């Protein structure tokens, strides 16, 4: 691969965007390493956010937990757990960062628009236009046990509620016209008369009547992110989102197919097909040589998938408690039990455990793998492994062919897991002309190279057309 600008690619001037995901719960965070730090100390969040900002990342993401995960009715104790409320933590980070976007994963099922839209606006103003909202939904009654509403919402209704939620939130965000707040100390009124608009919304999910309390920020609205991969989720993103996360960032062909699908859906709803940034989640493992990188990957995988974790993952697949088995021995001889998923271990749904187990057995036999080795080898193959230079070439290929707009990096170590990406990979990307050398704007929307918020654009387009 050449280092000069190859012009025979679909997007010769495409730029790669990075986000960082401060992981909450899952076994990918290696908590057992000696240099693994606190998952709750504010210093950890500050370190990751400031390192990302040094590396000119677009955004820092926080997930949301609404109930601790359980296995067989007992709290899952093997993985990192315990995290701050996302919007509260991000508001603190707004004070100690300057340019990086601050994105909160917030649930549209167990929040109300008046409250959440206002909290997001607050973050947007405190960060001067750097807020984002990753819209997620929940449909299980198990999570509902922590909320006033209790067990709640059909699967089919969750996106309907999310979409209506967004409609109300956007109406609130648009409730103050630009320049609605008086700009002179001697003004007769605090706001410009007639520039504030009540929001009255009556729909199947929400019946509200309220006065918005906040002006728009420097970027108009918080940037909208969406993570669902189902057809429903993709359509929702095509209609509503500015950025879509995906699990399609490992294999080039798979990533390109996903991107083409998203572009088709965008065109179908009348949006330009470059209107949505595609940022797959990924892990990046860097070594000085290919061999070193592969060796590091192997070490990381064995840290992530401890014997207990391997038995836990296999137990979920088999539907049997396997915690007393030997992870370094052979696969269980029993057939899997197909059980109803109650949502207590996240959204993971295994369509047909029997087929998966048969595959696992065949592969394990061929390669002589233990159960733990099988779990590692056949688990989700996320991430990119290589040298800084090799990875930079690969990412240039991905982005210039329109397979991704960037990656949302999940460091395997907190809080230092970004250091080698920022120090070693970013300069290589810059050298190839696919990564900024300084922030291109002051807001998250500007840095992502996005057009204005959808509602504003629609209004402007309508005016231009009319």
């Amino acid at each position, binding site marked *: 691969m050449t280092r000069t600008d190859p012009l025979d690619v679909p997007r010769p001037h495409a730029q790669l965007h990075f986000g960082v995901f401060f992981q909450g719960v899952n076994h990918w965070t290696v908590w057992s390493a000696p240099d693994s730090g606190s998952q709750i100390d504010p210093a950890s969040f500050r370190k990751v956010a400031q390192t990302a900002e040094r590396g000119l990342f677009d955004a820092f993401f926080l997930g949301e937990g609404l109930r601790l995960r359980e296995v067989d009715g007992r709290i899952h104790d093997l993985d990192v757990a315990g995290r701050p409320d996302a919007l509260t933590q991000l508001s603190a980070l707004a004070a100690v960062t300057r340019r990086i976007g601050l994105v909160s994963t917030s649930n549209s099922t167990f929040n109300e628009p008046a409250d959440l839209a*206002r909290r997001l606006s607050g973050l947007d103003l405190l960060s001067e236009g750097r807020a984002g909202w990753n819209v997620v939904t929940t449909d299980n009654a198990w999570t509902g046990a922590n909320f006033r509403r209790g067990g709640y919402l059909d699967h089919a209704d969750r996106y309907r509620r999310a979409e209506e939620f967004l409609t109300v939130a956007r109406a609130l965000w648009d409730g103050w016209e630009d320049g609605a707040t008086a700009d002179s100390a001697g003004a007769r009124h605090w706001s410009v008369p007639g520039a*504030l608009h009540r929001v009255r919304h009556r729909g199947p999910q929400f019946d509200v009547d309220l006065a918005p309390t906040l002006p728009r920020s420097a970027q108009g609205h918080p940037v909208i992110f969406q993570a669902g991969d189902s057809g429903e989720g993709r359509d929702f993103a095509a209609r509503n989102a500015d950025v879509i996360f995906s699990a399609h960032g490992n294999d080039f062909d798979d990533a390109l197919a996903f991107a083409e699908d998203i572009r088709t859906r965008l065109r179908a709803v009348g949006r330009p097909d470059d209107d949505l940034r595609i940022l797959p989640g990924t892990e990046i493992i860097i070594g000085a040589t290919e061999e070193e990188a592969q060796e590091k990957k192997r070490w990381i995988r064995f840290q992530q998938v401890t014997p207990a974790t391997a038995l836990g993952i296999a137990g979920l697949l088999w539907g049997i408690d396997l915690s007393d088995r030997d992870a370094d021995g052979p696969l269980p001889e029993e057939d899997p039990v197909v059980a109803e998923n109650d949502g207590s271990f996240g959204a993971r749904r295994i369509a047909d455990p029997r087929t998966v187990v048969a595959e696992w057995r065949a592969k394990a036999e061929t390669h002589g793998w233990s159960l733990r080795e099988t779990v590692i080898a056949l688990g989700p193959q996320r991430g990119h492994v290589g040298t800084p230079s090799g990875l930079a070439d690969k990412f240039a290929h991905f982005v210039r062919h329109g397979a991704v707009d960037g990656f949302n990096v999940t460091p395997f170590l907190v809080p230092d897991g970004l250091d080698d990406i920022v120090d070693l990979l970013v300069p290589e990307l810059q050298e190839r002309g696919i990564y900024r050398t300084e922030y291109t704007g002051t807001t998250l929307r500007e840095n992502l190279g996005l057009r204005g918020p959808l509602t504003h654009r629609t209004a402007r387009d309508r005016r231009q057309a009319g």
Partner: protein
Amino acid sequence: MTGPALHLAVEIDGDGAHPAAWRRAAHSPDQLLTPRRVARVAAVAENAGFTLITLDDGVLPPGASPDPVGRIGAVERAAFVAASTSTIGIAPIVPVTYAEPFHVSSQLASLDHVSAGRAGWVVAEEERPEAARAWGRPLVADAEAQARESRDGVEVARALWDSWEDDAVIRSVATSRYLDRERLHYIDFTGETYAVKGPAIVPRPPQGQLVVLARPGRVPAAQLDVALVEGRDLASVAAATAAAGTPRVFAEVEVALDTPDATGAERVADLERHAPWTDQGRLRHIGPADRLIALLHELSRHVDGVRLHPLVLDEDLSVLSRLVLPALSERRLVARPLPGTSLRSTLGLERPANRFAAAAAAVAAQEDAR
């Protein structure tokens, strides 16, 4: 009462306690909701030596209708301020009349983490019926129902703060266990209007329990650390204090001080042309700084602290910083909080034992005794 006689808190929402305070502010309205302004007011209060700032809030816009004023959510402001200050206590006002207690508990526990143990919570109610329409929730109509929501909300939040024992994160490499699930607890709260399972998502806050403040009567005294008492004169404040039954009592005092440019009375009169400064039954001091100092001296015989509500922050905060706090400090009537000290310690309150850990210890002791 031990140590310095008086702790001073100041309410810093918006431009001041008067609904038209923005008219005398030193900035234009469009500067109110900027990070610079939010950080600056907190810095002035911290530098002046206040123990605590409180931040008013509610779902409805403040200010005198039809000229409402914008307001950033108190929890977001508090977290932002926590990251830009180092010693002052920070207590947002968070009503749980309609909010989800699980979210409120997480937000406040997180505030305690980001402030390294400087967080408090002022419990208040969303009293106006319009708040229910804004939330899209059934109206919580009368005072009794509102008190019920506050009581239950505080009970849930407090139980969730204890639902992780302090050392629940064990990171045991030998057993591959990150958590000790025996040290995590379902709270299984069932109230009149909702139930909450638990445990929390946020590990136990640094203070164990945040400092909870409220007017007496809205939240049971046993759930309160600090009662915020009202009364138009010293006698009624003293009576309310005696009746409070809480570990600490703060008196609410509204102030409009004489400034180099105008007397307190002139400033009040100026703003009254636009909107009334509604009498909420609180002590009100309008006049020179030395008389406020005398009043605070008097109050120090009855209460542990005073929460000041300045007429206009830009005007009164500067008089408080220059004249009032230094004079009180000189007389050793107040002491500024020390770096690295939790709000609880500053107020002389103990870090509470974890109810679940205490229960487990009691069972163990009983078994040992057999």
